[in-house]
């Protein structure tokens, strides 16, 4: 086994390390800690954080890439498979390998298309054939199906519930018992523990049921080439997170620096920055992005020697898509921040700082940036969902992620082709829709709670 670190993997882990280091730093300062403690007392915040962290867990597992050593050896040298897989692939190997011939509905035992089949009598019969994996254990589908599904779901849910209870008990014993009631949480009226407990148990039961069913059915059906949609959707999470976070990281310095500089310095600085973003935002963005992506694509095609594996190539394409999206989408936030800064710079505390002779960079970082952070936070979360959707649009135009990369965009694009079909193939779209909805909603709710917690003007109960 040879670990492979793709570019986006590196960025994701860098981001994670930054967040952890930040958290470590914050822990040491009680006044920095306070707003986060407020977040920790909000049921809404903690539940959405729990759900978000489940998504992130999938994304992180999917970012641990490696290549498997093949059994045969070449002159004593280990030969590695050309395919790069991730830790998540290993965990979900069952889902990945159980491919059908073509479409099948969720939980179905039959294919979605009729085929010619030879009967025992040698006649050719045209009917829905049984699936290769989904529900093969059923001898009489019509009679056993419902009972089997209910039974499996119930067993899975029970097992999941049991695991959930064990998990909570373990956490309780490991972390909470020693600290007992020293935690400020226990004294607060809006105690999120109950909500967290219920959510954890519900989620555990849900995952138990789904994973038990997934062992013998395709829970979300299969796509055109018979791949399990649940697997595809889970794999799409990483792409979504990468596009959402890395693009925002690219956008942020541009929007923040240029917007605040334009608003604070005004004059010719403002003129230049305004001209740049007016020009940039008056070019149709899809056109601009398509042109950049195509140029990048050609460069990648011209230099196959840069990449060891196809996964590395797809990954660079994903990363450059993030960069291109980031470079073209900072204008909106920049304009917002410029306006806010124009308002802030006239406030008296800025003038007081100027009267002390505080340097402009310091005024910008100490006085203006902290006061526009709520806008940045909200805009980032709004952009996050927008970017995931932009990726879908671009994949449709054919300039999105590499076709081998699974993403919500490619899922929706694939679903789009089948929407006109009768009977309709709805599950691919439903899967992408459901996953994106939960992800974006959780992120939005969490950001809302964080924003409120950081606003000193809101009166906080504690």
């Amino acid at each position: 086994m040879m670990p492979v670190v793709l570019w986006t993997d590196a960025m994701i882990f860098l981001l994670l390390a930054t967040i952890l280091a930040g958290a470590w730093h914050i822990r040491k300062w009680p006044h920095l800690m306070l707003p986060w403690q407020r977040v920790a007392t909000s049921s809404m915040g903690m539940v959405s954080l729990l759900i978000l962290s489940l998504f992130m867990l999938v994304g992180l597992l999917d970012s641990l890439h490696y290549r498997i050593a093949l059994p045969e050896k070449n002159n004593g040298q280990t030969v590695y498979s050309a395919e790069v897989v991730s830790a998540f692939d290993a965990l979900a190997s069952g889902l990945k390998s159980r491919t059908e011939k073509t479409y099948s509905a969720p939980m179905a035992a039959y294919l979605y298309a009729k085929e010619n089949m030879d009967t025992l009598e040698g006649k050719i019969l045209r009917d829905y054939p049984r699936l290769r994996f989904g529900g093969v254990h059923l001898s009489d589908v019509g009679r056993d199906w419902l009972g089997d599904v209910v039974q499996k779901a119930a067993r899975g849910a029970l097992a999941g519930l049991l695991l959930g209870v064990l998990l909570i008990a373990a956490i309780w014993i490991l972390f909470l018992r020693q600290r007992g009631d020293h935690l400020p949480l226990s004294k607060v009226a809006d105690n999120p523990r109950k909500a967290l407990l219920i959510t954890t148990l519900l989620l555990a039961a849900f995952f138990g049921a789904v994973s038990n069913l997934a062992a013998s059915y395709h829970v979300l059906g299969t796509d055109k080439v018979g791949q399990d949609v649940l697997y595809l959707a889970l794999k799409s999470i990483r792409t979504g997170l990468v596009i959402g976070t890395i693009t925002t990281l690219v956008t942020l310095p541009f929007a923040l620096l240029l917007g605040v500089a334009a608003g604070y310095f005004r004059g010719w600085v403002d003129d230049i920055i305004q001209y740049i973003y007016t020009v940039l935002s008056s070019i149709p963005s899809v056109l601009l992005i398509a042109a950049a992506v195509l140029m990048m694509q050609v460069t990648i095609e011209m230099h196959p020697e840069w990449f060891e594996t196809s996964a590395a190539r797809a990954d660079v394409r994903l990363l450059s898509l993030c960069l291109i999206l980031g470079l073209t989408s900072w204008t909106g936030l920049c304009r917002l921040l410029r306006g806010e800064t124009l308002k802030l710079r006239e406030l008296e505390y800025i003038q007081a700082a100027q009267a002390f002779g505080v340097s402009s960079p310091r005024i910008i970082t100490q006085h203006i940036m902290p006061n526009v952070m709520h806008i940045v936070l909200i805009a980032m979360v709004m952009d996050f969902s927008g970017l995931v959707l932009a990726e879908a649009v671009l994949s449709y135009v054919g300039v999105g992620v590499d076709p081998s990369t699974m993403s919500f965009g490619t899922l929706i694009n694939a679903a789009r082709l089948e929407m006109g079909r009768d009977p309709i193939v709805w599950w691919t779209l439903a899967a992408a829709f459901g996953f994106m909805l939960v992800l974006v909603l959780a992120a939005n709710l969490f950001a809302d709670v964080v924003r409120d917690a950081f606003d000193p003007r809101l009166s906080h109960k504690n």
Partner: protein
Amino acid sequence: MNKLLSVQSLVTSLNAGTAIVDDISFDIAAGETFALLGESGCGKSMTALSLMRLLPDGVHLKQGAVHLTNENILMLPERDMRRIRGGRMAMIFQEPGLSLNPVMTVGAQIAETLALHQDMHGAMAEARCAELLEQVGLSDVQRRLRAYPFQLSGGMKQRVMIAMALAGQPKLLIADEPTTALDVTIQAQVLQLLRDTQQQSDMSILLITHDLGVVAQMAHRVAVMYAGQIVEQASRVQLFAHPAHPYTQKLFAALPHANKGQALAAISGSVPALGSAGVGCRFAPRCDQAWARCHAEMPGWTKLPNGQGVRCHLYDTDEAGTTKQPSGISASQAEQGSSSRVPPQRSSENSLLQVENLRVHFPIHKGILQRTVGYVKAVDGVSLTIAAGRTLALVGESGCGKTTVGKALLQLVQPTAGSVRFAGNDLVGLGAQQLHVQRAGMQMVFQDPYASLNPKMRVAEILQEGMDVLSIGKNSTERQQRIDELLDQVGLAQASKWRYPHEFSGGQRQRIAIARALAVNPSLLICDEPTSALDVSVQAQILNLLKTLQQELGLSYLFISHNLAVVEYLAHEVCVMYLGRIVERGTVAEVMRAPHHPYTRALISAVPHIDGSGIETVRLEGEMPSPTNPPQGCYFHPRCPHAMDVCQMDYPKATHVSDTRQVHCYLETTEKVKQS
């Protein structure tokens, strides 16, 4: 007495249960002006909104009865209530700029009320609109009818608001701080208008205000509100002669007076936050006559023999032993007022700040090429001198350029011309590096304590910023010590160091702002209206603090203000500004007692005095012209009652009336000529 409005135990509370207006009862007779006096946050406006049944979301009427000509309007269905609003009961608001719809002409807005309440349409309505506008004293009525609110000045907008309120021929006019947003000279015009209208139409007015001076001029009867309750109710004469409640007494005592040697009787603390009221008297924590019972039991309403009502244990009959006559404090106060005045010192020769002919012109850009088509002459040749340890006040109405002078001195605004010599160094045209060295000497305290502190920084960080930048204090521990010292100096607890500004009240925030300025050991503080956003009781605290700091640290102040009473208390010398120029300067005693310039005279006479007296009343017509295009000759001549032909020719030169006194007016020169 013919009762027009009768309010009985009105309670308005938040949906959470906290009472904002707590058990209020009063009556208003026809043709009477009833003033509701109180500091901000004590529930005055909520009372008015309760009467109109226009309470915001989250607030509801809990109990009580409001009878308007014997009809309980709290029981009316919303449909009938709409007829009463604007009809029998009309309201004008504090901010005239926000209460008119910016996209409708003035005429259309008045016509709306007429159509609704008088069923007047078309030409008849238009004629009535014109009549109303004439009634409120607007000239050129036909043109004004078609004007949009942005084309009118603040005073004119408030007149239009009054015209709109009068359109429904109301029996009761609720005026919520109608002049707070206006300048003194305009305030005098609007108050006069309200009085005239009342006489003509026999209308009652419920006047909501925080200004004792306005009450003295306008009211027949007064109710004093504190923390949601009426604590005292009396006729104006009674109240001003014998304030009964300790709060009212203190409110009078806290007014700035001309006696400089004496600290103001400030009320400690600030108005309690809504819902923080305990079981006892709400004023007890700030009252120095309070005893155990005041903290334990809410005082009931006591009617004094002379008809005055008061909510205080001092007047309870069962506390007969301790009952005091409701006169003590104000009488002693009056005595102290006449005690010996500190003679004004001759300003020492070593002046700290010398400003010569300072000009600040802002260019007006127009067109695609942003060519400069003109200048706003915000400051147009101001010269002043401040000696060490002295206070110079810069007085004028809003828009006269006094704040710009302050900012130009600090080089926050680049002066167009002139020199600013501070401690011997000319600041104009200095490079950033050289200016940096001079920064510590001069600091500013701003007007709005809510906008002058960064909400994301804690107090310690706010105070430390200036020290860091100007390298005051060797290391972090030394600076922390200095911060503790500063907090002591301005009267804040050292523990407040680690809190955010929003946790403090307005007065405390202003203390923080003063501490921030003091952090770098300045010798001159520029105070830009430091008390105008504060309540009277808190204003007295800040004025006392400024005075003590001056005595202890030998600070000089440039005190920018429109409040003449405050200036009279704090300043040694005064400069009166009009349209970017100083029209009169002199010591406080000279300028306040015997103003020479007609503008100064008008300004001083426009200030409502609590004893209802003033020097001869000089009413100014019109408003200050735009500084873009000042009038030819003397800038004041279009409004001046003594304008002569010569006034239209050239700007008058300075006439030295005495050593300390200068006036820019032709009246002075002609008088001198006459004398000689």
